[in-house]
Each structure stands twice: as structure tokens, then as C-alpha cells.
């Protein structure tokens, strides 16, 4: 692993700045120069590679959290309710 001094000398971005840029990096909305800085930093900083990988994986698993079907009885209840709107309007 490279020393801190070497890391700083070889990159235009600190690890803290890298953490702040991750969102835009993953959205592909970084300007090319900043993106180049970002990827150069990744080349020499295993800490930021780990940080990026775990951030990205967190987003992935968050997406898998909830894909629940609406329960059949709930669906039936709501549809039954919505099928009687005229009666409701008068109440």
C-alpha cells in the first residue's frame, strides 16, 4: 500500500472529496476532468476503491429491499371501495 504522502502527491482529490463525488460519479454526471481525477485517485487508493464498492453495493441491496405485492385482500378491499364512488360522493 502506498504511503499517505505518495497518495497525495499523485492525485488531485482527497479521499474526503472522493466520498462527496461518488454520487455524481455513479450518475455519470461528473465533468470529464473531474472524472479523470476521480478514476486516477481510484488507481492508487485502495481505501477509496473499497469505499466506492461498498457504497455501490449498498445501493444495489437497497433496491432489492422491497418489491412486495399488494396483498390480494387489500387489493380487493380498495377496488370494492373505488367501485362505489358515486355513493361516497353523496355521503
Amino acid at each position, binding site marked *: 500500500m502506498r504511503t*499517505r504522502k505518495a497518495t497525495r502527491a499523485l492525485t488531485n482529490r*482527497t*479521499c474526503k472529496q472522493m466520498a462527496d463525488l461518488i454520487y455524481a460519479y*455513479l450518475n*455519470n*454526471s*461528473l465533468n470529464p476532468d473531474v472524472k479523470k481525477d476521480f478514476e486516477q485517485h481510484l488507481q492508487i487508493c485502495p481505501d477509496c476503491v473499497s469505499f466506492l464498492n461498498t457504497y455501490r453495493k449498498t445501493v*444495489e441491496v437497497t433496491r432489492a*429491499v422491497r418489491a412486495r405485492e399488494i396483498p390480494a385482500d387489500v387489493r380487493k378491499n380498495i377496488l370494492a371501495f373505488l367501485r362505489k*364512488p358515486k355513493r361516497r360522493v353523496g355521503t
Partner: protein
Amino acid sequence: MDLAMAMADVDRRNQMSTNPMTEPASSVETRRVAPSHGLESPLIAPAVSKRKRRSGRGETGLIERLKAGDERALEAIFNLYSRKLYNVALRILGESADAEEIVQDVFWTAFLKAKTFRGASQISTWLYRLTVNAALGRLRRNRKGKEVDYEEYLPKFQPDGHHLVRPVIDWSDTLDEKYADHETQRLLANAIDQLKPLDRSVVVLSDVEGLSDKEIAAALDLTVSAVKTRLHRARLFLRGKLAAHFGHSPA
């Protein structure tokens, strides 16, 4: 605010947006700004790319029928969106009975207020907005302000900008392996529940429902920059919770 400043830096450098990043999110999030077209470019990172969503074609006809009081149009819209809205309400509220009521109320409101719907926004945005507002309103009424402090789970840095705890451990493969475990899924679900309600709404609409930042901004009446800031911070918190779960520092 460091993050907002960093994002402002991104925007200035990109020179693509009219501005939104140039002010801290806390001061701008309640007002709307012009869309930042440059930030809506297609995503290339597969792991976080937004899922393809409905085009909105055909919705206009449904809305016109709904405005005319056609109950079958309401049912068609229900069939298109009930599952999504139920999941959004469920995740924000955490209670299935409450989620059922919210969804019922939202579709009832949609029927009653269809005439006020402006074609400028997609019906999905309108329905998401109704759902989130109803869910957040219910939370405000039912829950005492149980604020969670994110700080403990956010990454920390040395004054020189390096991670405070090194080496940063890459536990992403562990998460892949362990995600099938009920315990890990429950931990993540609990962590999402601990997010501030508005942050939770942003996470649910983005990372669970797959809406774009712009769509979320429209649904929640936030600026796009506020959505980005909230989403990034919430993701960092969730990441920190998972890191702690696997015995590591949020770094």
C-alpha cells in the same frame, strides 16, 4: 455544508445546470428550480442505473376519462400504480394497515380531483406526490419527533482528507453473500426505517422505485440538488449501518 459545496463544485465544473448546487440544500430545498438538463444523462454504472420506467404514453387518455368521471379509468390507473404506491406507503410508514388506507385515499382523491390535474406532470408523479404527502402527514400526526443522528454512521476523515480509519475494508462481497440472510435484510429494512421521513421518501422513490432525481424532486416538491444531497447522505448512513453490521468502521 461539505457535500453541498462539493456538489456545487461538480455543477460549476460541468457548467450544465442553471445552478441548484450553489446553495446549501437546506436553504433551497423548499423552492423549485428549473430542471438541470445536463444532469439527466444516461447512467453508465450498471449497479446503480435507474430501471426503465413507463413512458407515460396512454396516460393522457386515462386522465381524460378520469376527468369525465369514468370509474373504469380509475380502475385502470389503480391496476397500473397500486402496487408501486402501496410499496412506497408501506416503506415510509412501516405499517401495512396504514399503507392500505393511504392507497385507498390516494385513488379516491385522484378520482375526486382529476379535474385539477395539470397535464404538465405525469400522472405517476402526481400519484407519488399524493402518496408521499399522505404518508408523511400521517407520520407527523402519529409519531413523536424521533430524530436519528446519522453522524455515527457517516464516514470520517483526517484533517488532510484521508479516511480516518484505514484500511477501509471492502465488505461488498460479504454483503452479496449474506444478503440472503434474513438478518441482513432486516437490518437494512430497519436502517431505512431509521432515516428521517423525507430522506426515507427520497430513498424509497429512488433506490426502491427507480424514479429519477428530477421525478423525485417533482413528487416531493424539492429541488433536484436537495434530492441528490438527501439521497447521498441517506446512502452513506445505510452504508455505515451495514459496515457496522459486518464489524467494520464506516471509515
